[in-house]
């Protein structure tokens, strides 16, 4: 069995966001594998280590810099990596285009039986692209998964719903997206980081995967940081008195109680 994991390079979650010239500035910001994608990569490697798969391949859509994120996945234990890029993909709001590109690349990478990804990217918070590609590819999905078994031509997964969980089965090939309780991603060891440098990393253009990008459904017309807060109104006094005064303020001033 071959497993494909789609990943995205994102800012670390500690990153301070600044806007520069109408775009989000990446100046001085450390970029990582999207944390949820890292759970997906770890799961794929675990499946391979337990004999459930022969090959783990990672795929990303991203500029040259995203190659670093792929190397990280190779150092964790993935066997090969693919990066698709075209400068026309740099504009935000193009989830529909990204899904077309991803589906094209995944079509070219066939045959594979399991598609893994993080459930959401912590930067654009969209959770659209890989599911949309799965529909195009005609495979089922189980999203936001915290436990996964693969075998007998199917996946059995525990998925997070609003306020409860479900155990769900789906036939392979299938898409499963990872949530944070799925596993604990490993840190690559130094020998594995060295080894990763010799693993194959293939770069594809849109022409290579036979896709015409088309125009995006959305264009970004504005970007802003949240309005600055002026700081809290500190309620003074002994703790018990302050507590009573605070309750009163929430009732009479903020009117939230």
């Amino acid at each position, binding site marked *: 069995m071959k497993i494909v994991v789609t990943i995205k390079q994102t800012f670390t979650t500690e990153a301070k*966001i600044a806007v520069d010239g109408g775009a989000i500035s990446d100046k001085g910001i450390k970029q990582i594998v999207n944390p949820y994608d890292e759970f997906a990569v770890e799961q794929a490697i675990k499946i391979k280590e337990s004999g459930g798969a022969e090959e783990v391949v990672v795929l990303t859509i991203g500029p040259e810099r995203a190659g670093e994120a792929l190397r990280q996945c190779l150092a964790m234990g993935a066997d090969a990596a693919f990066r698709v890029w075209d400068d026309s993909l740099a504009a935000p709001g193009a989830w529909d285009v990204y*899904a077309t590109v991803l589906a094209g690349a995944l079509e070219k990478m066939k045959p594979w039986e399991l598609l893994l990804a993080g459930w959401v990217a*912590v930067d*654009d918070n969209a959770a659209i692209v890989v599911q949309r590609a799965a529909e195009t590819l005609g495979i089922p999905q189980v999203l936001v998964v915290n436990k996964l078994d693969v075998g007998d031509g199917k996946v059995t997964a525990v998925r997070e719903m*609003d*306020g409860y969980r479900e155990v769900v089965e789906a*036939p392979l090939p299938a898409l499963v997206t990872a949530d944070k309780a799925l596993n604990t991603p490993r840190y690559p060891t130094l020998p594995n980081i060295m080894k990763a440098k010799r693993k194959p990393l293939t770069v594809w253009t849109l022409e290579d995967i036979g896709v015409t990008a088309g125009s995006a459904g*959305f264009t970004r017309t504005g970007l802003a940081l*949240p309005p600055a*807060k002026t700081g809290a109104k500190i309620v003074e006094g002994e703790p018990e008195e302050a507590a009573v005064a605070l309750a009163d303020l929430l009732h009479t001033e903020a009117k939230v109680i």
Partner: protein
Amino acid sequence: MSRVLVYVEHDGEAIRKGSRQALGVAASIGGAQVEALVIGKGAAGVAAKLGAYGVTKVHAVEYDGAYATGVWTGAAQSAAGDGDCLILASHTSFARDFAPRLGARLSCPQVSDIVELSGDLGGIEVKRPIFAGKAFETLKSEAGRLIVTLRPNAFAEPEAGGGGAPEINEIAVPEVPAALQTTVIEVLKPDTEEIDLTEADVIVSGGIGVGGPEGFDTLRPLQKTLGAALGSSRAAVLAGWISPDHQVGQTGKTVSPQLYIACGISGAIQHRAGMSSSKCIVAINKDPQAPIFEIADYGIVADLFKVVPAFNEAIAKIKAS
């Protein structure tokens, strides 16, 4: 005049809060013809209630089973039809699952988890948080067919009332090919019925300052008095004091309640990202330098174990009066 189709989620009787908010957004679009899609057991009964929200036509699928991607996507595709249509849904676990696939089927763009919407089909503008609320982007689409999911609690709930009985279009349960069939084999309900964080009006949240798993017991009475959901910081989850379902932040839930009470939470950027869009933020923390005070509206610098019980008592008195 544009056609707006709202996916309405329900429990067999009541309409989910996020869906009521989506109906409000639909009604606010001038001159729109508002239709709804209702799927599940009791769909007909829910459909009949929708006239009060300005819905003139309901696409109803009476369906007895658990949520299934193929059924929901197929039903939404039938309801959307061929022409121009704005499809709205609250950004719930169901919509998160079927909306992207619907976008592929209808070959139309989708945008998710938005907090503002203006304009009309052909020139719609939406605002949405990125980097978990550390920035907001505005996006525009000129598409005639569009799917938009709305962040729960980001939109006001409309007043329901009046309206005639909507026209009902019954849709048969869509056939799902075997290769696409997902089967729910077990539903795991939590031991205690907790209020869902994403739809909660009030959240009482604890961090490292609660000192241990038993520290959350200090917050429980206040949570109960306020009818609040219980949140936590990532640090408290990593310490194993509370289950990850409660985590608010960039790698947890993103919430926007009316009132967020942060108890013993320092306010790391990771946490602030998930809750900074709350309408009113209260911080209770011993450390006057804690960054949570920068984004809080009200604060008390003191030991939460002294403040919270007194605060709870005071709130209970206000509620009783």
